[in-house]
């Protein structure tokens, strides 16, 4: 299992979701991705996107005005 990071700071929703989706499409199932964003809308949208598309939301942390959303890539 490998961990990856995606910088989606300063992007407004749904762009953080789109960038997450495009990155996840390149990763094998089981890998972890941490998305770093600043739009508070991502706190709702990325988990919803995970539920809809079969990925696992691991946790959400707030750090210095940034939001770190960690997910595990699901099976196709």
């Amino acid at each position: 299992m490998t961990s990856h990071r995606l910088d989606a700071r300063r992007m407004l929703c749904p762009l953080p979701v789109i960038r997450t989706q495009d990155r996840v499409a390149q990763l094998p199932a089981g890998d972890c991705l941490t998305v770093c964003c600043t739009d508070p809308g991502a706190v709702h949208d990325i988990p919803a996107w995970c539920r809809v598309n079969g990925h696992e939301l691991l946790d959400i942390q707030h750090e210095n005005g940034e939001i770190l959303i960690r997910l595990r890539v699901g099976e196709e």
Partner: protein
Amino acid sequence: MTNKRKAVALISGGLDSLLAARVIQEQGIHVEGINFYTGFCVEGHTHAIRKKDRARPKRNNALWSAEQLGIKLHIVDIIEEYKDIVINPKHGYGANLNPCLDCKIFMVHKAREWIDSHDFDFIITGEVIGQRPKSQRKDTMPVIAQESGADDLLLRPLCARNLPPTRPEREGWVDREQLFGFEGRTRKPQMALANTFGFEEYAQPAGGCCFLTDQTYSRKLADLWKARGERRYELDDIMLLKVGRHLRPHPDFKMIIGREDGENKFLEGYRKQYVHLFTTTHRGPLVLIDGEVNDEGLELAARITARFSQGRDAELVDVEVHTLDGEQQVFRVRPIAGAAIPGGWYL
């Protein structure tokens, strides 16, 4: 049917596309959703910027629809390709700068490309004849099907009974008898159908799905094109049109003035790209200057900035100006009187 047929549904986040997808799911078809992001979508943006909007419960309606349906949703970024649709719509604009018919054709065209590359069988939309005056009329339905290249692989489950049978119907992939013949502007049949499916809290039909249907927004976009002498935009331009108060005190430049902390914070992200001003002796907005500005213009911009600060009634206000080469200077100015700002400066 040995082979389960697959359809992609254009999901806007509104009720009609939600219903269309469910109607087809009910017939045992595998449905996935596709949603296009143009940069003008009302979804998402403003709530993140203004504090008062943040308080509202927020959701992405397309994702919400997909969740209700239990389907996958593919969100496609069409920001770049969409520029040509907004700038040169073959079929013209609606009431504002909304190129609805060209937009529909383009989205169905993208969906057609998508089904080809993903091995899906057909496309569904929530269109209803007569629902929208420009893009959803009986005579525009075949135009969309033909010009998008989707032809008879485009099925509109909510009004299919009023249209010639498409391939999914002719081949028996779906049963035409179980499709609908909705027509006109009434929303009652959709609401009744939503009831039978148990859908609640769906997004209410608004003026449209994007900022281009908004009069004020379209005016600001038209002003941007006029000031630049060409019809062109970047993503940052169209984001900034959603934020702040826009004033054009001179043909060569306009001011984008943050209205509250959330907007000021958002505008801060653009400080490196724009000449910007803020008051230092009083609390006030962050102001970006879009265009070319000389010293005289900067002084005027400083007086306007002071006007929108808490020093509006003060004798003198200090305004710090940062230019693109990193230089900064302070203007000590008398705030401009409200009556001295012509109404025509407000965009």
